[in-house]
């Protein structure tokens, strides 16, 4: 038998990956640079702000050697905007992930990093949880990041209790959206379900459900699909106009 774990990442694995997100801290003590496999951390000189991995930030926070600056999207106003966007502006789609950061190119122009879309940027190259992250957009690890920050550094988050209840609302709204998104399967599994903007923990939470529904719909439509294929093949034998995969010239 295969590994008795479900497919995909379990929540603790998701949270482990989230701890690699960079976060901005205000150190209270000096700390020399540490050589890590993922690169050296910046040497900390209070009160200079630095970006370090979340796990290190939480460690320093627990030792009272640093304060964490929560990312702009974790503020009350930004969360309210997000909930408004999710419920009123776009009640069916997901709010988009944060846009790539804007950098000046030395000639006085500002343009989006990676605007030609040659490579897909992801953290830590994309500052999604540092203080320079854009407000009003949820990064991939939003849920677990917010949970961990609220659990360990709630005194650093402004109006933490409001943030907490807004996060609950947001989570419920998006979970309901995930449930209604399967209604598109009524006509059969024919397209793609866009999951752009869905967080890692949400994916891990609803993976079993969504794949279960898709599997069920596929089974129920299997015989209709088989007969459709046969029909198509018969038609394809009569006139060979339809371009096949070989004609695409890959």
């Amino acid at each position, binding site marked *: 038998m295969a590994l008795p774990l479900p497919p995909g990442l*379990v929540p603790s694995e998701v949270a482990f990956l989230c701890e690699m997100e960079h976060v901005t801290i205000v150190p209270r003590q000096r700390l020399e640079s540490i050589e890590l496999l993922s690169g050296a951390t910046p040497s900390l000189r209070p009160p200079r702000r630095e970006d370090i991995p979340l796990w290190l930030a939480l460690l320093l926070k627990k030792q009272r050697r640093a304060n964490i600056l929560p990312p702009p999207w974790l503020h009350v106003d930004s969360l309210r905007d997000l909930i408004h966007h999710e419920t009123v502006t776009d009640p069916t789609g997901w709010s988009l992930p944060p846009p790539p950061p804007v950098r000046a190119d030395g000639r006085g122009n500002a343009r989006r990093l990676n605007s030609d879309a040659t490579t897909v940027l992801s953290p830590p190259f994309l500052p999604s949880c540092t203080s320079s992250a854009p407000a009003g957009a949820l990064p991939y690890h939003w849920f677990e990041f917010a*949970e961990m920050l609220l659990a360990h550094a709630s005194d650093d988050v402004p109006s933490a209790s409001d943030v907490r209840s807004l996060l609950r609302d947001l989570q419920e709204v998006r979970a*309901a959206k995930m*449930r209604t998104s399967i209604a598109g399967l009524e006509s059969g599994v024919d397209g793609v379900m866009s999951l752009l903007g869905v967080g890692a923990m949400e994916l891990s939470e609803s993976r079993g*459900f969504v794949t279960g529904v898709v599997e*069920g719909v596929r089974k129920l439509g299997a015989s*209709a699909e088989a007969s459709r294929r046969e029909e198509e093949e018969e038609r394809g034998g009569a006139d060979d106009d339809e371009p096949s995969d070989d004609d695409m010239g890959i």
Partner: protein
Amino acid sequence: MSYYDVDAILTDGEKVPCTFELDVPYLGHLDNSTTGLKPGTALSLPLWLAEMLALASTGDSKAPLILNMPPCLSEQVIAALRADPRSVTLREQNVHLYGVGVRMLDLFDERELGNTLRKTFVVRAGEVGLHARKADDGSLGGQGEEFLRGLEEWERSLFRRAHEGVKSAKEWTEKVKKS
């Protein structure tokens, strides 16, 4: 479908109504008669046997029996499902309703039935997901229990999967708060 899938095996054992076309001696005990089966006898046979006999044909003669739609997929049930998928207690119709449905769709060319079953499954799956999420806080009250009792086997396993995901995420959230 896996060889070891218990649900598939149990689905195979579901009985479907058939009508014999041939005279079969020495099998009268199936119908509590002493003479053997006459043509036109209506019998309920398990799906695996009925399917085999219905598809078997010996050269020139026709198949030994004719398969009919099981009562759980009858016109009335399908009409009720078309009207409101949520109000039907599928479990009372048949514990393996979708499984039997898939097998019937393989045998009969019933596109309409397939569409109805799929719509039913998707609509009810949404409800199952809602209940799986709210099962722990009990905020839905008694009406949820009624619905969950009417779930068919496919839906039960879907409920289990959905609940598993929600539960493990919730457990992680609790653990973070404590540590």
